[in-house]
């Protein structure tokens, strides 16, 4: 189209320092997004390898490669890393930082230095989490949920892991705060709330959850630390406390945290589908407001994690009812995505493939979530492999696939290079197949009574467990192929154009990779974000 005017991209050195320091001192939202991505990518691979070790252990009954205590340590660390360091910050810290300011036509976030500070807090928390594995009396063995009373009594290194989660939560709060102020104050002239693209809308809802829910887990974890250090007795029945209260406080945050993971994922999918269908998104307002609805109702459903823990019947049916209500706005989104595709001219490119996979996997995860949310069935499958399969379908099949979709969608913009699309398609297919072989058998195993968090199992579960492990290796191979292809694209790929997919949002109006200040002249928005007709 237009001949490219020479400009300085954000990837080129431009700060006071050179090399790595140039990046570590940069308050540019795009660079901070990339730094989050590299850190999160590294932790993701550690988490994947830990998960694979668990699958190898479960390849045959009895002790295969590790004993029960090691297994307990590994599933705890896998959970802590994947939840607190990968999926919760994942999309908002990486792609939110990279693209939200550009999509609303701003030069940066509202508080750039606070943004960099959040990254450093994140790294400190991550280092603490990793250190907790190697110091003290062995890795924590409580599971990522740190349930009292076991977590107040076990001799393992719980305090450091809990401190890590606390610090990571602080980073999450500051990112959320930054995004809320940015979206309120820095939208381009003419961009009213209902002219804002839907990814920023999803991030806005997410940011409110981060802000309103994270302090609760913060104080809960502090109470847990105090309980261990000083015996204050909040969760110890011998001293008058109540362990169930810990579960309540924990899930008051940790259930909304699920929406911190999935809402930005839905936002990404909402960006990708109109672009590859070249069609205006169906039901713009419904999608935007359903994000808010999910955030709002999602705050009130935490009790469904505790149906078997001891609650009044009234509390249980209210929580169950509210859980079913959350399914409504989620379903609205799915209907709208499918309706957007209807009569569109669909281009089956890699980001679109991941998006379709997302919808498929998210629906399985969502529907199995409903069976867990109903009181009678939950008693049967609580704490079985069925639950494990369900939340991996939501977290990995949902948030993970959306992350891969976003990565392939925005990669040309981020680096100004293209990856090999054919290899990327093949990788997405392998990942999709591996994922289903890995997790689907766990639904069946769970229904048959295979408990979660066991390093051993009865012989009748062997077929399912072997199948699942094979799926794990296929998935791993797919991930390696995907990452390898992206790294190769980054160094050897051909130059990417300004707008390779024909997108309409503001990030596609600026050169790839974006200039340091994003826009030469501040954009003025007159049209709706998905104006394809």
């Amino acid at each position, binding site marked *: 189209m237009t001949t490219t005017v020479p400009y300085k991209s954000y990837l080129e050195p431009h700060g006071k320092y050179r090399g790595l320091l140039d990046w570590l001192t940069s308050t540019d939202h795009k660079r901070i997004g990339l730094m989050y991505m590299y850190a999160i990518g590294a932790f993701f691979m550690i988490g994947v390898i830990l998960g694979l070790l668990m699958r190898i252990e479960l390849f045959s009954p009895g002790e295969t490669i590790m004993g029960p205590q090691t297994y307990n340590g590994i599933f705890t660390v896998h959970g802590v890393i994947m939840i607190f360091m990968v999926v919760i910050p994942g999309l908002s810290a990486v792609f939110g930082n990279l693209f939200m300011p550009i999509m609303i036509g701003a030069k940066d976030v509202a508080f750039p230095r606070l943004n960099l500070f959040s990254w450093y807090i994140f790294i400190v928390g991550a280092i603490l989490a990793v250190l907790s594995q190697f110091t003290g009396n062995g890795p924590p063995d409580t599971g990522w949920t740190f349930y009292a009373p076991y977590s107040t009594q076990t001799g393992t290194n719980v305090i450091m892991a809990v401190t890590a989660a606390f610090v990571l939560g602080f980073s999450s709060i500051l990112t959320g705060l930054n995004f809320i102020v940015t979206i309120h104050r820095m939208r381009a002239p003419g961009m009213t709330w209902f002219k804002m693209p839907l990814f920023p809308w999803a991030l806005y809802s997410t940011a409110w959850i981060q802000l309103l829910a*994270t302090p609760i887990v913060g104080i809960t974890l502090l109470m847990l630390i105090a309980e261990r250090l000083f015996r204050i007795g909040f969760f110890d029945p011998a001293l008058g406390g109540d362990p169930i209260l810990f579960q309540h406080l924990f899930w008051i945050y940790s259930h909304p945290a699920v929406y911190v993971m999935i809402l930005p994922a839905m936002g990404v999918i909402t960006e990708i589908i109109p672009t590859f269908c070249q069609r205006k998104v169906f039901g713009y307002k419904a999608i935007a407001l359903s994000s808010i609805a999910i955030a709002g109702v999602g705050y009130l459903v935490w009790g469904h994690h505790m149906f078997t823990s001891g609650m009044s019947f009234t509390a249980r049916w209210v929580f169950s009812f509210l859980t079913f209500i959350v399914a409504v706005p989620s379903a609205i989104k799915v209907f709208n995505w499918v309706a957007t595709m209807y009569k569109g001219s669909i281009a089956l490119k890699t980001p679109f493939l991941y998006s379709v996979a997302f919808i498929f996997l998210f629906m399985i995860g969502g529907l199995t979530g409903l069976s867990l949310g109903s009181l009678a069935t939950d008693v049967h499958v609580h704490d079985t492999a069925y639950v494990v399969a369900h939340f991996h379908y939501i977290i990995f099949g949902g948030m993970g696939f959306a992350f891969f979709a976003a990565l392939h969608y925005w990669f040309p913009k981020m680096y100004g290079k293209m990856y090999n699309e054919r290899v990327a398609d093949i990788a997405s297919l392998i990942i999709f197949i591996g994922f289903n072989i890995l997790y689907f058998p766990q639904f069946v195993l769970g229904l048959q009574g295979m408990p979660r968090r066991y390093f051993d199992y009865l012989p009748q579960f062997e077929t399912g467990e072997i199948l699942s492990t094979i799926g794990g290796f296929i998935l791993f191979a797919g991930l390696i192929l995907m990452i390898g292809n992206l790294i190769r694209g980054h160094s050897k790929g051909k130059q990417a154009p300004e707008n390779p997919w024909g997108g309409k949002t503001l990030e596609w109006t600026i050169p790839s990779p974006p200039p340091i200040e994003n826009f030469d002249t501040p954009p003025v928005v007159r049209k709706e974000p998905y104006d394809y007709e």
Partner: protein
Amino acid sequence: MSDVALKHDEHRDDIGAKLGMWLFIFTELLLFGGLFLVYAVYRNIYPEDFHLGALQLNVTLGTLNTVVLLISSMTVAMSITAIQKGNRKLSMQLVLLTVLLAFVFLVNKYFEWGAKFEHDLYPGSDLVLQFKRGTIIFFGLYFFMTGLHMFHVIVGMVVLMVMWFKLKNKTINPDDNVLLENGGLYWHLVDLIWIFLFPLLYLIT
């Protein structure tokens, strides 16, 4: 110099800065909100035991500290008005006075906690573990809540000292004082939380 000031003005958004501070204060309130929830739950279960625990607290010292914090909130508010009216020296003095009052609060708290420790009234002590269950929880809450509040007082003092230096080198000036306003807001938060802790722990017996 004027160039730097101009660049600074370019990205300046006082309303945005204040919005950010209010959101942060919101998260702090929720942090303590978790504790208020725990307090409510256990007070509901053990009303008599809480009564016995609360009788052990020193209402005089608590009242004194409440008065000290209320005055400090006033002085920090006055420092903001002072800088807005262009009186930098008075503003700095008032900020310093606020820090001093915060220090008085901490000294008081030191004596209060010290007396408790002297009488073996601290979580996990042999004496406390013999109490009724609700009273054990009460002392757990007392030390945890006032301890966390004390930590906020110390953070607030650091914030106020930073404000003092920024007033000194004129980063905070009559035209651009949103930073001091935010620092003041934080200090009011510290005060506000105490206003809730005081009746919950000391007065409701």
